[in-house]
């Protein structure tokens, strides 16, 4: 029996069936507390029409899919190298072209121009507001987390705290919180940008100084706790933050110069251009940083902290810097969100948001700016599409089922992400070959 199960074809088939069963549950109808089995029976037994092509029981379709997947898998194991070789030779020329700087610059410039015209190509109000609130803002957040996770190799599960602080600082300086605004001056939201960024960076230093002395896994759980505390605090301090209702009196961005008076409303397009401008600024700053002395120090710490320390790099200093710098873009994201939606409340800054941002970074590729931007745009677009026109059985919180699965699958099959950073890919490869000192699990005690 055991030998039978261990045969490649059989084991592939069994694994595929298991995976497809899980996939079937994910996409199936929901159950409820009174009918806990409805989800299970519905997922397998329901008759469904597939894209209007044919209608049959769900389990038939998924069994067929499992057979196809296991067939492809078995084929991939015997013939995969041939296909890989073919793909590699086919892609050799584009890849070589990609190495040339003008080609890359041109490509990014084209993307930028496309982004400039996007609000005029897509005029649906839902998608216009999604472009700002869910895509551009999340690109900023992902860029920020990428500095922490990708560049410095620190797993921060409470990144949403920085976003929250940015938004609350905006509400504070514009006079929308129960806490009196500084010096009693109600500032324009534009002036909140530098103040919020500066305060969020200070907040990053304050959180980083005690926590960044900890080992990687402890850091993850402690940052998770900090993220929760920010929410608990915002929820319960009515006198300071407005409690669970927060505030909905944040003034829109406005421009008052002599005779020009221009107040931005709820319409998303001006915010889109503002955010786009900052996305470009952050991309440039972060990629310059990556290749600067600081970026090299981050890489050194990430690859081998002890060695980095022995050549005179102060790990704590550079880790705190990563926290503060990464926080800056999240702080700006907070300003945009607060200024456009004119409200802040604790419910917008919960742990799932942190996990969402993490998923964008991991999917796109840790440490790869292009990857993170592409990953954020792709995932956010798909998730907002699902929210806008949900397929049968999809509930809005199901998104996290998919994001969770994506995190696991990426780690199993493509740990360096969709568009890997060259250095990251090399590091992971080295770690897996047993070279270098990126910490591993279960190899006895590594020095």
């Amino acid at each position, binding site marked *: 029996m055991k030998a039978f199960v261990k045969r490649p074809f059989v084991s592939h088939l069994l694994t595929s069936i298991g995976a497809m069963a899980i996939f079937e549950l994910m996409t199936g109808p929901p*159950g409820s507390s009174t009918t806990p089995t409805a989800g299970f029976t519905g997922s397998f037994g329901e008759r469904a029409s597939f894209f209007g092509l044919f209608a049959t029981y769900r389990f038939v379709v998924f069994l067929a899919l499992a057979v196809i997947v296991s067939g492809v898998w078995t084929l991939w194991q015997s013939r995969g190298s041939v296909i890989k070789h073919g793909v590699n030779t086919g892609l050799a020329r584009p890849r070589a072209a990609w190495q040339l700087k003008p080609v890359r610059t041109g490509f990014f410039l084209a993307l930028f121009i496309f982004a400039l015209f996007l609000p005029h190509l897509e005029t649906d109000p839902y998608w216009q507001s999604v472009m700002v609130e869910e895509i551009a803002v999340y690109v900023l957040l992902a860029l920020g987390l990428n500095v922490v996770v990708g560049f410095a190799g620190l797993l921060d599960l409470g990144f949403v705290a920085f976003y929250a602080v940015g938004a609350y600082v905006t509400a504070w300086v514009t006079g929308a919180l129960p806490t009196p605004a500084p010096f009693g001056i109600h500032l324009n939201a534009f002036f909140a940008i530098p103040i919020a960024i500066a305060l969020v960076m200070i907040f990053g230093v304050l959180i980083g100084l005690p926590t960044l002395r900890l080992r990687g896994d402890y850091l993850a759980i402690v940052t998770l*706790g900090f993220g929760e505390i920010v929410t608990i605090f915002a929820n319960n301090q009515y006198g300071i933050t407005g409690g669970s209702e927060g505030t909905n009196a944040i003034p829109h961005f406005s421009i008052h110069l002599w005779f020009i008076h221009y107040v931005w409303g709820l319409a998303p397009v001006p915010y889109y251009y503002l955010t786009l401008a900052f996305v470009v600024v952050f991309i440039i700053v972060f990629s310059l940083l990556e290749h600067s002395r600081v970026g090299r120090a981050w890489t050194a710490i990430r690859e081998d902290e002890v060695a980095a320390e022995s050549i005179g790099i102060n790990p704590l200093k550079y880790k705190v810097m990563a926290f503060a710098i990464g926080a800056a873009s999240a702080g700006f994201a907070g300003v945009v969100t607060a200024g456009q939606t004119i409200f802040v409340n604790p419910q917008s800054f919960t742990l799932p948001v942190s996990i969402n941002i993490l998923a964008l970074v991991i999917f796109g590729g840790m440490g790869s700016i292009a990857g993170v931007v592409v990953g954020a745009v792709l995932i956010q677009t798909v998730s907002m599409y699902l929210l806008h026109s949900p397929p049968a059985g999809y509930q809005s919180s199901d998104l996290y089922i998919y994001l969770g699965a994506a995190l696991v699958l990426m780690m199993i099959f493509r740990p360096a992400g969709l568009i890997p950073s060259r250095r990251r890919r090399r590091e992971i490869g080295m770690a897996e070959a047993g070279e270098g000192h990126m910490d591993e699990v279960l190899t006895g005690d590594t020095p």
Partner: protein
Amino acid sequence: MGAFGHYLSAHFATLRLEFWGLLVGGLANGFIYAMVAIGYTLVYGVLRLINFAHSEIFMSGGFASYFVMKAIIGTSVPSGLASVGLVILGILVGGTASAGMALLLERVAYRPLRKRHAPKLAYLISAIGASYFLFNLAGKEFGRYNLSIPSPYINHTVFTIFGANVQMYYIVILIAGVIMFVTLDRIVAKTKLGRSIRAVAQDAETASLMGVNIDRTIALTFIIGGIFGGAGGFLFGLGSGVVYTMGFTPALKAFTAAVLGGIGNLRGAVIGGLILGVAESFSIAFVQAAFIDVVAFAILLLILLFRPTGILGERLGRSA
């Protein structure tokens, strides 16, 4: 005495008044934290890694026992021997479901990475992904409301101690906890399985050269941690009900307990759990209810900063 002194003395008066009640409640919570902490500490001992998805192992035990209890008890009120049998059944069901979940998790989220010698960051991310996947899937399948487990016993006050009522619920937790902890302690100290766990924790490569099957030992470690987590899930559910997000806070606290006692140290996990439960309970006299969770977190942060090896010290690979 200034305002702060006044604040303290007023709250100490509350603490004095409620001392025994808070102590009993805190110890009961502490036993549950300890059960969950066992899972963290065992896996940490063997793999040197925090199992971020342990909260969902805990949750699956809670849900499994909820459905079984609901099917058997329904609306009746069991008593006497039936109660004893039902509590044991609940623990067994919760433990089995969680052990199965732990095994599945190890297979799907950890083993592929282990085979590749992936860096530690990959495990953390994979575990977080698995955790999010699992609890949101549970929310989808079983609804997002808190469900109370039908009580297998009549929760009357069994006796009072210095004016504090000790209910049946606390007695159940105490007895189940003591029996399970003593059994585990003996298993790890005396049996071949315990020896292989300790061997892998000490030095995996050498252990495998000595003929210890590492994969099997790791799987068994997950299973034992799962049994304790599931039992904890059932007992927690008896008091607070089950809901798809039930794992998050208790697991964070259990992790604190594991670190407090010294991670990798089984007896430390128990002591850490009890201390944390009591400390948290006493803090009710001092802070708003909403900030109770912050207290546990503050303890975690302080321990990690000032004594990361915990009270009994990190003990990897030694007996108990």
